[in-house]
């Protein structure tokens, strides 16, 4: 397991991605190595409001001077993300990372991977896409959102896909860009048309993940889902973030996840 650290970080860049989402870049003083699907627990300021850190998937990590730049893609939904959206550049925060497991990235043999992202579920998927591109492992990338404006980082997604000669499929609920309807339907259409995948790796809203779990169960496709349970500690001690497994156990998402094989999850995920 990659060692977990409580890293002092500084906000060094921020840019708007959509009406609700932004990219945050944090610089660390020490090297960070992390796998796609892992996340970090980030403070949103230095006081008691909010009290707890917030969980964000790592969207990318690259070396920078003696340390690293950790990238996150964040949707402003409440107080914590609102503070992060408006912190001055240079602000000091703390990041507990890397946490959790990660996606199972293919070893290059056989079929392609399907990467599936819904809305702000993109960050771990983008991280995976860029790593796979760097390793030249083939994949298609399905990117869904409510509307065209909320399709994030399309350019980077396209670049990554092009490296490996995969397909970038865009889907919007309102049909304003790409295929109309849910992104899972776009996956299903291709499966129905005979496309085969080694495995699907997905992150997005729970209904999307459940749809994909069902699809996987019906079509015999192995599916890995990155789950979002409300987290307090992020390191497996508070037992706040548990998810129920097929065998009835409650396991902490932050430690045994956030990525789970859909087949390991309790049956209602696939029903």
């Amino acid at each position, binding site marked *: 397991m990659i060692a977990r650290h409580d890293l002092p970080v500084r906000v060094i860049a921020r840019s708007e991605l959509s009406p609700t989402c932004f990219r945050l870049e944090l610089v660390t003083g020490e090297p960070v190595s992390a796998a796609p699907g892992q996340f970090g627990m980030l403070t949103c300021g230095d006081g*008691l409001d909010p009290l707890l850190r917030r969980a964000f998937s790592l969207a990318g990590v690259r070396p920078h001077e003696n340390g690293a730049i950790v990238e996150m893609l964040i949707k402003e939904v409440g107080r914590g993300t609102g503070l992060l959206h408006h912190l001055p550049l240079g602000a000091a925060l703390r990041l507990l990372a890397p946490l959790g497991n990660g996606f199972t990235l293919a070893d290059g043999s056989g079929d392609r991977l399907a990467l599936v992202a819904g809305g702000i579920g993109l960050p771990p998927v983008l991280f995976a896409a860029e790593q796979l591109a760097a390793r030249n492992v083939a994949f298609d990338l399905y990117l869904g959102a409510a509307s065209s404006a909320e399709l994030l980082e399309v350019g980077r997604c396209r670049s990554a896909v092009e490296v490996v000669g995969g397909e970038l499929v865009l889907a919007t609920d309102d049909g304003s860009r790409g295929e109309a309807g849910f992104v899972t339907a776009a996956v299903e259409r291709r499966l129905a048309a005979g496309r085969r995948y080694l495995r699907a790796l997905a992150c997005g809203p729970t209904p999307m993940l459940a749809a994909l779990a069902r699809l996987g169960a019906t079509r015999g496709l192995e599916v890995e889902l990155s789950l979002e349970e409300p987290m307090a*500690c992020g390191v497996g*001690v*508070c037992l706040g973030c548990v*998810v129920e497994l097929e065998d009835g156990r*409650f396991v902490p998402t932050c430690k045994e996840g956030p990525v789970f094989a859909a087949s390991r999850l309790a049956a209602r995920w696939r029903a």
Partner: protein
Amino acid sequence: MNVSLRTHVGDLALQNPVMAASGTFGYGLDLVEFCPPERLGGVVTKGLSPKPRRGNPTPRIVETAAGMINAIGLQNIGVEAFCRDALPELRRRNVLVVVNVFGETQDAYLEVITRCERDEGIAAYELNVSCPNVTAGGMEFGHDAGTLMSLVARCRASTSRRLWVKLSPNAPYLVDTARAAVDGGADALSLINTLRAMAIDAVARRPVLATRCGGLSGPAIKPIALRMVDEVHRALPAVPLVGIGGIESGRDVAEFLLAGASAVQVGTAIVRDPTAALRIAGELEAFCAAHGVADVTELIGGLTC
């Protein structure tokens, strides 16, 4: 300035007053990378029951103003797994281990203790009496002085190890309950556990937690915890107390010691920051050095009025 942080809870020596509270430090080894347990005053395990428990459905936690509510439902690996998987390594590291014990019946408490008695390396038991007593219609063990005294007395009879009782701030009569625990044979009292509380999702028109209510912890409750420690200390000055509730800094520890605690436990602060207990111990040392306290025990019960 050279500061001595050594303290005693009754006859139990602690290298410093800062312990990790039950439920926020796993079984003592979960956060070793962040906070080596052997450097703390001690660690209190997650509450152990005779058998593993799944705990409550989710959502189990919700953040509130300067606090959080949890309704974990005492999910734990069970006493057997603890003794088998964690205790040997804790012993090897020389960690001061306090086993937090709970049950839904008196027998369940005894079962946990009896299993632990077979192994070395446990400094004390801490009875969590804030759990529903199934044989008394779900009322918490800690809410009725008589029930509490009989529970403590039975546990007392089953071990010669130190017995701490962790008081519930929801109990009707704090001092009576404290006295009952001592009369039953407790060596020390830990206080406080969480306060019963609730969060509501106004949009969904539902309680946030699956169990409707849960226990409030964190800085929000510190002023209540301090008052309770002060109240029990003044009523029962000879009884060793372990202060708990919203501790976030070395200065907070000093406040609890002044109110009468001999040691403290840190809970929610660890949830916020896995290194917290160690940092707080360091801050306590710095606080002492800055204010001319050569021996931290000078602070215990040291309010000047």
